[in-house]
Structures are given as structure tokens and as C-alpha cells.
């Protein structure tokens, strides 16, 4: 009842404002009238009576203001007034407004851009039904804390675990698409039929796998991704029921997956899991790259699932000691796992960009403080007319928030613009999560930080302004004084803070840059210039027979060697500096392992003859691989220096015999170590590890090789040879896809794309921070010089040298800078620890970086002080004194 009254009363007052006001006016008039009449009855003159009434009542406006303050509508009303008044003030000072809005737009825009990445990658839930319940189940072994389960263990996990509504499996692979124009290498997944209902995903055309399709010997069927369907078939639904050739086998298209569907990575096609799993060896220790996806039952927490899976793993370890000894099981949230690598970098960047905004806020606060002096009269008049202090603060805050929202709006436009290059830079470092853009959440975030920024930079100036004394400001003699020492202290404090924050960011960026430079200086162990690289996957069906496959690779290498412009060529299963690798167990003759599962693991690098020579890896002892090292000839291996040192310290490994991929067994031939080569790095950021190079023809009998990367040393720019190589390969097999032509240097650059992304962004933020802080310092000094003009004039008139004046101003600024630098150094020392995980070859407290960065900042800051100081030096004492 009363609430309704209040709302309607308020609305009526808002809508029929003039009526309400008139009524109030009249009511007060009648009160005065009645009051005066009463006094006149007591014999007072009318004039005197009216005077007395007014004296006792105080200002009629004040009473009205109090009455207006009763309802809620007054809040909306004054807010609207404040907004209009604020907008008018901002329009009246276009220069100030422009500078402030642009500064804020930079700060807020950068925040919005980074936040939209954080939002899409870290915050937005995956596009599945109830994604919070989805988990990945992995195995853990003593040497590998987390790897996809073997097929046999996956089956046992699936059948025994009760914590999950279901456990589905995915394997990521590649398939050759032929029979439609140029042969193409498709990214593919093998998925169990259970996967789609588990995720809550339906086909938009046709249907997902049935259990009859997901079995060995079932019909060969394929689901197309939305993107692949659009790209290759123009999105026509009549593709359903048609066949496409994958790895030289016909597959019937039975469904189209929805746009944006992806599990772990986006793929072109999905085929059933069981036929692929059937081809796996019956070995629990064989980890072919299975991703096990589970959905927790509604009443089960992830901790309970972990306990259960650990128990199952223990049971399996007992049951299969030969394979599963020491095995454990991990259960982790799907989204957490997908983003775990990128989360620290993104949060670091979000923090950094937040500091940039903070510095921007400092600058605006300083501008507002400077302006406060010139607004003193205006504020004083308002105060004298009865505006309370709170009212003035509210008015000034409204103005700042208005400014911040304007900055936020421009910032959003800016974010839109910078998001495209940002994503291009980050593309290799971010997990694929679907669209990254400005959605509702980014808008809300932007509004929130704009509001926060507005209050942040507006509060101190507003309080300062409202605090001042009315009388001197109103009197004509006062010429807008400087506002006392406290305002100076606030301004100094702001600049000191800005310098400190900028230094922290600069040191962070400096550390990353030094670390990145170290990374660039790392010698990969071979000559990476003039190398063209391409992946050559042969069809597992077309080249199912080993002799055919081997001679295909031989032909490819021989043919490419004869190309003009190519001086050497070779191929290997795994290239250096790719970050990935393959390890295999082995044993050394005469040193059998103590237990069957006590074998040693080593980097496994099947390679063609000529591969090591093409890379120009130095031969340290013995010989390289050559053409006679085939499956018929004696088995050989070339080891790298690390392996020689690790396993044959103090002796020559040449002539020693090893068994690859085996605990001692009679079935596998012993291979003799015939050569030692220099180390090549698998990752620039880590030490080289023990590796051995096995002739690919001999390796193929151990694990069949269906894809190799070819490496060509060219005399000219490597990309110039692409078409010649393509033609040469298609002369041998027109259906042979060639995937991802790149130079070795590009390959290396890709391997450091994560640190490059981080370093560049932090560098840009730090540079903006430096710029903002220096502008802030410059603004403060220039303002100070202006304020002190008369003082400087007096000093000069009294005989001070111009250089003394210069020194006076520079020292004043330098003091602030040095305090800021000291605080910043402390802050950086504490905060740079957070960067440890991103640093290579540099400690977080690297003294050189700290010293260099601090000196650069101080130097730049001195220039910012020097320019206004020069102006001070040129002050004409006569003019300065007259000015007063």
C-alpha cells in the first residue's frame, strides 16, 4: 500500500513536476502569509513581520530542497540533472574532454580486448549440455604424469567406473581425402557412438553414429563438420548417403555436425572409433593417443570420481603387473584441461593491462585536479547558493563517470579494431574455443571497469574540490590560488604511483624480452637456413604393404634431390624444434634391465639416409646413416652426443649393440651403434635430450611409418621450390597430399609463438604505460611551472641564474621520479616472481634488466621534466611579476 503510494507519488511528481513545484511554492507562501498575519495581529508592521518570518524559516529554497529530498524521484532527478550538467561542462572543455576520453579509450579498450579473450577462453562454458560435468580421464605413469589411456585400460575404466554416466573415447588423427580435385589431408577424429549423447550433441542433418556403425566390420560411415560441409560441399543436404574417399576407402556420409562443434580440437570429419581401435596391438602399455571423455553423474563430485578411478587403476596395476605397474588415473574438468596452458599467460596479461588502465586513471585524476583550480569559483558559487558538500561531490563524480563511459564507448570500438590483429598474433597460442568477440559479457565488463575507473579517478579530485574554502574563492582579489599543499601532495602521489606502476610493467616486459632474446640465440644444433619442410602422409590403405611404402618414400627423396635448386634432401618421422617427440624403450647388450618394466626410454627418430647431412648436423664419430642400412642389412643406429654421454660415459659408443623397442628378446635384431652426431634441440627452451636415429626402413618393421616430413636444402629462398616439389611428387603419385609447406626457420618461429605472443603484448602494454606515465609527469611539471611563474620571476629578479631555475624544476620532478622508481623496483621484485614460469635463461630478479629498465625510465622521465623546466628558465621576470 505505502510502497505503491510512494512509487505513484514519485512518478506523479516526476511527470507533473511543475504542478508539484507550484503547489509546494504556494503552500510555503501561505505558511509565510499566515505566520506574518499572526505577528501583525500582535501589532508588528507587515514589513517587520515578513522579515521575522523569513529569518526564522531560513531560505525558502532550502526548505523546498529538503521537501524534494523526501521522495525517491529526487535521486533520479538530480542524477539526470548532474548528467546534463556534466555533459555541458565536458562540451565546454573540448580539449580536456578529448584527451581524457582518448586516454581512457586506450586503457579501457585494451582491457576489453584482453578480457574478450579471457572471456571466450577461460570463462565461457563449452557449448555442450551441462559442460561443468564433463571430465577427461587420463593415466599417470611414473615417467608421464598424464597421458591418454591405453585402449585396454580405457575399456576397463569405462566398464568399471560408476562415477560417470558414461565414458566415451576420441582419437585425433588425419585422413587423406582423394577423388575430389587436389588430394587433401583432413583433420579427423575417431569417436565412439557414445560420445555424442554424452556431450548432448545431435547431428543437424542425418544422425550421429549408431552402435551398429561403431564396431569392427560395421559399415564405413563418416560425419562431416559444419565447416567442412560448407567448404567442400556448399552446405547441400543431398550429400547424405553419398560416399567420399578417405585413405583410399569409401565412407558413406551419414550426418552433419552442428556449427562450432568440437571436442578438444576442431576437425573436418569424424569416423567411428571401434574399427580404428581394432587395429591396435593387444598391449596395455601401448598409448595410441586416446582421449577419454566422461560425464560425471549428477550426484558425484570430481573428488569422488578421482578416488574411484585411483582405486580402479590400483586394481588394474595388480591385475596386470607387466603393463600397469605404478599406474594411476587422473580425472580433470574438460575445460580446465583445455585452458591450463594458456591460463597463466592470459591472467598475467589481464593484470598488466589493468595496471595500464590504472596509470591512465592517474593521469586523468591529475588533469581533473589541475582543472579543479579553475573551477573553484563555479563550485564556490554553488556552495554559497546552498549546495551541500555531498551534492557537489556527487556532481563531480557524475562528471567523471560520464567521462569514463565516453572513454569506454570509444574503447569498445578500439577493442573491436585491435581484436583482429591480437587474435592473429595469438592464434597459435590459444586453444580453439569458438568465436572470440565482444559479447554481452564483454560489454558488461567494459561498463563495470568504466564505472570503476570513473569513480577511481574522480573521487580524489571531487573530494579535494568540495573541501575547499568558499570565501577566498568568491572574493575578487583571489586569482584561483593553487589550492594548498594537500592538493599538491595528491598530485605528486599520483605521479609517483604512475611511475612505480609503469616501472613494474616495464621490468616485466624487459624480463620477457631478454628471455625471448635468449631463446632466439639458442643454437638448435643444425643449420636452419634454406631448409624447405613438408609433411608427406601416405595413405594407410593405398600403401598398406611395407615394400610399396618404403619405395615410395625412397622415390620421393631421390626425386626431390634431383630438383634444380635443391642441394640435399632427406626425411624423418619427427623434426627437431617441434616441441613434440616420440620415445621408445631400449636395452643395451650386456646390461639387461633388472625387472621387465624397468626399461629405459629414449628419443626415437627414424630417418632417411641423407637426413642428418641435409640438416648439417656435425658428425662426431663413426658414420652417418646410408643407403645400405635397409631392413635386409645389419641393423644400425646413430646416437646423439647426449645419449653417448648418458649411457656410455668415458667410452666410445661405437660398436656397442642395442635392442630398440624391446626388453631383451630374441625376436628383435640387435642394432650396432655406428655413429655419434651433435645434439639437436627438440625445444629451444629445454636442454637437448638423448636421441637415436634409426634407418627408417629398419624402424618400419618395428612400428610402421605412414608419414614422414621431408627436408630439402635449397640454394635460394626455400618457398621458391614448392611448386617444383609438388609437381615432382604428383608425377610419382597424383593422389599424394603434401601438407604444410614451411621453412625450417618458420618451424622454429612457430615453436616460440607462445613466448612471442606474451612478450609482444606485455611489451606493448609496458610501452603504453611508459607513455602514459611520462605524459602524466610532463603534465604535472608543466602545470607546476605555470603555477610558479611569479615565484620564478621573483627568483630571477632577485638574481637567480637561469640554470638554477632549470635545476630547481628538474630536481623537483626528479625527486618524484626517483621515489616512484624506488617503489616500482620493490614492487617489480615482488611481482616478477609471477613471471618465473615464462622466463628462459633469466631469473625474475635479473639485476641487469632491473638496472637498465630503471635507467631508461629515469632518463625518459628527465626529458619530461626538462621541457617544462626550459620554459621556466625563459620566464621574463618583468612579465611574470606584472602578471601578478
Amino acid at each position, binding site marked *: *500500500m*505505502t510502497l505503491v*503510494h*510512494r512509487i505513484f*507519488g*514519485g512518478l506523479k511528481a516526476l511527470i507533473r513536476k511543475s504542478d508539484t513545484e507550484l*503547489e*509546494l511554492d*504556494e*503552500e*510555503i507562501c*501561505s*505558511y509565510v*502569509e*499566515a*505566520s506574518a*498575519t*499572526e505577528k501583525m495581529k500582535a501589532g508588528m508592521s507587515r514589513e517587520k513581520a515578513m522579515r521575522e518570518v523569513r529569518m*526564522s*524559516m*531560513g531560505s525558502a529554497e*532550502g*526548505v*523546498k530542497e*529538503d*521537501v524534494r*529530498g*523526501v*521522495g525517491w524521484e529526487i535521486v533520479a532527478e538530480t542524477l539526470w540533472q548532474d548528467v546534463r550538467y556534466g555533459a555541458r561542462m565536458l562540451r565546454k572543455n573540448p580539449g580536456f574532454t578529448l584527451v581524457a576520453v582518448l586516454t581512457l579509450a586506450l586503457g579501457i579498450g585494451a582491457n576489453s580486448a584482453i578480457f574478450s579473450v579471457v572471456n571466450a577462453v577461460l570463462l565461457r562454458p563449452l557449448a555442450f549440455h551441462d559442460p561443468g560435468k564433463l571430465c577427461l580421464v587420463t593415466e599417470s605413469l611414473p615417467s608421464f604424469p598424464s597421458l591418454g589411456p591405453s585402449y585396454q585400460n580405457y575399456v576397463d575404466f569405462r566398464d568399471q567406473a560408476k562415477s560417470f554416466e558414461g565414458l566415451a573415447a576420441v582419437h585425433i588423427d588425419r585422413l587423406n581425402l582423394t577423388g575430389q580435385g587436389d588430394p587433401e589431408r583432413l583433420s579427423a577424429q575417431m569417436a565412439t557412438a557414445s560420445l555424442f549423447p554424452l556431450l548432448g550433441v545431435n547431428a543437424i542433418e542425418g544422425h550421429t553414429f549408431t552402435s551398429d556403425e561403431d564396431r569392427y566390420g560395421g559399415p564405413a560411415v563418416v560425419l562431416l563438420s559444419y565447416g567442412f560441409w560448407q567448404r567442400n560441399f556448399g552446405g547441400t543436404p543431398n550429400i547424405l548417403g553419398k560416399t567420399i574417399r578417405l585413405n583410399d576407402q569409401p565412407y558413406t556420409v551419414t550426418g552433419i555436425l552442428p556449427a562450432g562443434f568440437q571436442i578438444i580440437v576442431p576437425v573436418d570429419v569424424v569416423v567411428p572409433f571401434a574399427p580404428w581401435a581394432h587395429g591396435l596391438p593387444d598391449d596395455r602399455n601401448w598409448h595410441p593417443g586416446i582421449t577419454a571423455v566422461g560425464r560425471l553423474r549428477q550426484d558425484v563430485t570430481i573428488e569422488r570420481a578421482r578416488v574411484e578411478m585411483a582405486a580402479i587403476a590400483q586394481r588394474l596395476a595388480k591385475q596386470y603387473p607387466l603393463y600397469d605397474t605404478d599406474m594411476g588415473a587422473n580425472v580433470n574438468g574438460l575445460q580446465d584441461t583445455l585452458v591450463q596452458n594458456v591460463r597463466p599467460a592470459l591472467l598475467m596479461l589481464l593484470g598488466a593491462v589493468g595496471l595500464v588502465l590504472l596509470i591512465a586513471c592517474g593521469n586523468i585524476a591529475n588533469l581533473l585536479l589541475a582543472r579543479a583550480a579553475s573551477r573553484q569559483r563555479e563550485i564556490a558559487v554553488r556552495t554559497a547558493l546552498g549546495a551541500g558538500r555531498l551534492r557537489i561531490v556527487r556532481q563531480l563524480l557524475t562528471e567523471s563517470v560520464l567521462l569514463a563511459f565516453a572513454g569506454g564507448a570509444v574503447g569498445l570500438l578500439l577493442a573491436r579494431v585491435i581484436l583482429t590483429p591480437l587474435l592473429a598474433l595469438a592464434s597459435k597460442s590459444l586453444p580453439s574455443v569458438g568465436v572470440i568477440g565482444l559479447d554481452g559479457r564483454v560489454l558488461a565488463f567494459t561498463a563495470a571497469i568504466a564505472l570503476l575507473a570513473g569513480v577511481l579517478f574522480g573521487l580524489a579530485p571531487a573530494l579535494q574540490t568540495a573541501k575547499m574554502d568558499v570565501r577566498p574563492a568568491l572574493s575578487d582579489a583571489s586569482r584561483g590560488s593553487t589550492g594548498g599543499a594537500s592538493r599538491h601532495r595528491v598530485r605528486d602521489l599520483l605521479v609517483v604511483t604512475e611511475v612505480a606502476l609503469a616501472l613494474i610493467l616495464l621490468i616485466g616486459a624487459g624480463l620477457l624480452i631478454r628471455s625471448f632474446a635468449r631463446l632466439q640465440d639458442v643454437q638448435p644444433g643444425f643449420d636452419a637456413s634454406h631448409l624447405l619442410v613438408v609433411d608427406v602422409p601416405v595413405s594407410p590403405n593405398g600403401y598398406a604393404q611395407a615394400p610399396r611404402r618404403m619405395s615410395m618414400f625412397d622415390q620421393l627423396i631421390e626425386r626431390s634431390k634431383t630438383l634444380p635448386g635443391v642441394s640435399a634432401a632427406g626425411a624423418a618421422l619427427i623434426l627437431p624444434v617441434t616441441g613434440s617427440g616420440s620415445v621408445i624403450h631400449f636395452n643395451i647388450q650386456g646390461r639387461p634391465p633388472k625387472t621387465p618394466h624397468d626399461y629405459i626410454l629414449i628419443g626415437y627418430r627414424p630417418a632417411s639416409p641423407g637426413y642428418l647431412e641435409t640438416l648439417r648436423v656435425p658428425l662426431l664419430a663413426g658414420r652417418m646413416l646410408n643407403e645400405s642400412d635397409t631392413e635386409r642389412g645389419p641393423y644400425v643406429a646413430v646416437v646423439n652426443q647426449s645419449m653417448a654421454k648418458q649411457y656410455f660415459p668415458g667410452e666410445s659408443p661405437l660398436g656397442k649393440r642395442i635392442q630398440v623397442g624391446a626388453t631383451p628378446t630374441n625376436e628383435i635384431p640387435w642394432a650396432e651403434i655406428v655413429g655419434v652426431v651433435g645434439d639437436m634441440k627438440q625445444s629451444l627452451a629445454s636442454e637437448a635430450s638423448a636421441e637415436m636415429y634409426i634407418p627408417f626402413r629398419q624402424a618400419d618393421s618395428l612400428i610402421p611409418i605412414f608419414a614422414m616430413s621431408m627436408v630439402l636444402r635449397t640454394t635460394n629462398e626455400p618457398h621458391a621450390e614448392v611448386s617444383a616439389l609438388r609437381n615432382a611428387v604428383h608425377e610419382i603419385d597424383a593422389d599424394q597430399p603434401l601438407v604444410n609447406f614451411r621453412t625450417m626457420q618458420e618451424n622454429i618461429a612457430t615453436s616460440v609463438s607462445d613466448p612471442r605472443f606474451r612478450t609482444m603484448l606485455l611489451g606493448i602494454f609496458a610501452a603504453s604505460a611508459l607513455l602514459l606515465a611520462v605524459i602524466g609527469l610532463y603534465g604535472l611539471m608543466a602545470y607546476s611551472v605555470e603555477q610558479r611563474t611569479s615565484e620564478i620571476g621573483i627568483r630571477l629578479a632577485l638574481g637567480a641564474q637561469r640554470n638554477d631555475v632549470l635545476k630547481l624544476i628538474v630536481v623537483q620532478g626528479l625527486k618524484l621520479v626517483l621515489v616512484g622508481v624506488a617503489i616500482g623496483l620493490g614492487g617489480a621484485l615482488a611481482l616478477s616472481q609471477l613471471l618465473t614460469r615464462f622466463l628462459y635463461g633469466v631469473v625474475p630478479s635479473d639485476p641487469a634488466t632491473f638496472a637498465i629498465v630503471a635507467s631508461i625510465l629515469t632518463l625518459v622521465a628527465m626529458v619530461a621534466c626538462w621541457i617544462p623546466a626550459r620554459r621556466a628558465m625563459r620566464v621574463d621576470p618583468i612579465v611574470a611579476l606584472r602578471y601578478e
Partner: protein
Amino acid sequence: MPDIQSELVQGTLDMLILKTLALEPMHGYGISVRIEQISKGVFCVNPGSLFPAFRRLERSGLLKGEWRATENNRRAKYYSLTEPGRKRLKSETSEWGRQTAAIARILEA
């Protein structure tokens, strides 16, 4: 006017206005005079608190205002109690009685 004028206890002005209006509708000045007279000059209500109180009580639906001619043949806004206003007065009066009795007991103890 006595030298000492008591400040009204927070919230009691509303109650006094309601009580004053319980007898008959009155205009603003009349109400202030009545409160001053009945309190024998202890409470002197100035317009700065009176008018906001009217607005507050009117908004809450406890009073309603009406323009009428005064005894001096001028127009004035006369306030009168609404039904909820009467109820509120009753409940506030008994609550006040309870509280003052309790306070008196404490002070005499």
C-alpha cells in the same frame, strides 16, 4: 518563547503531526502553532522539518492534502488523516507509551 527549545526526538515529529490532525484537518502553519502551544513552547517546529514531514507522510498515504479557504479567506493546503494514518497513530501512540514507561522505569531504578 522560552530560552530552551528541545530538539524533537528523531521520528517523533511524524507522530505529533498525526496526533494534531486527529481532531480536525489543519494547514501547515496551524499545525506548527498547535504543536508549539500544546507543548507549552518546548517544541518549536520550523518549516524546514515540517514540510518534508508532510511530504513524507503524504507519500506514505498517512495524510491527504486538500486546498481550502482559511478563516482569513486565503487559500491553504489542509491536511487530514487517512484511515491508515489513524491506524498508524494508534500503534505509534501505544508503542510510545510502552517505550517511555520502560525508560522511566530504568531511570527510576
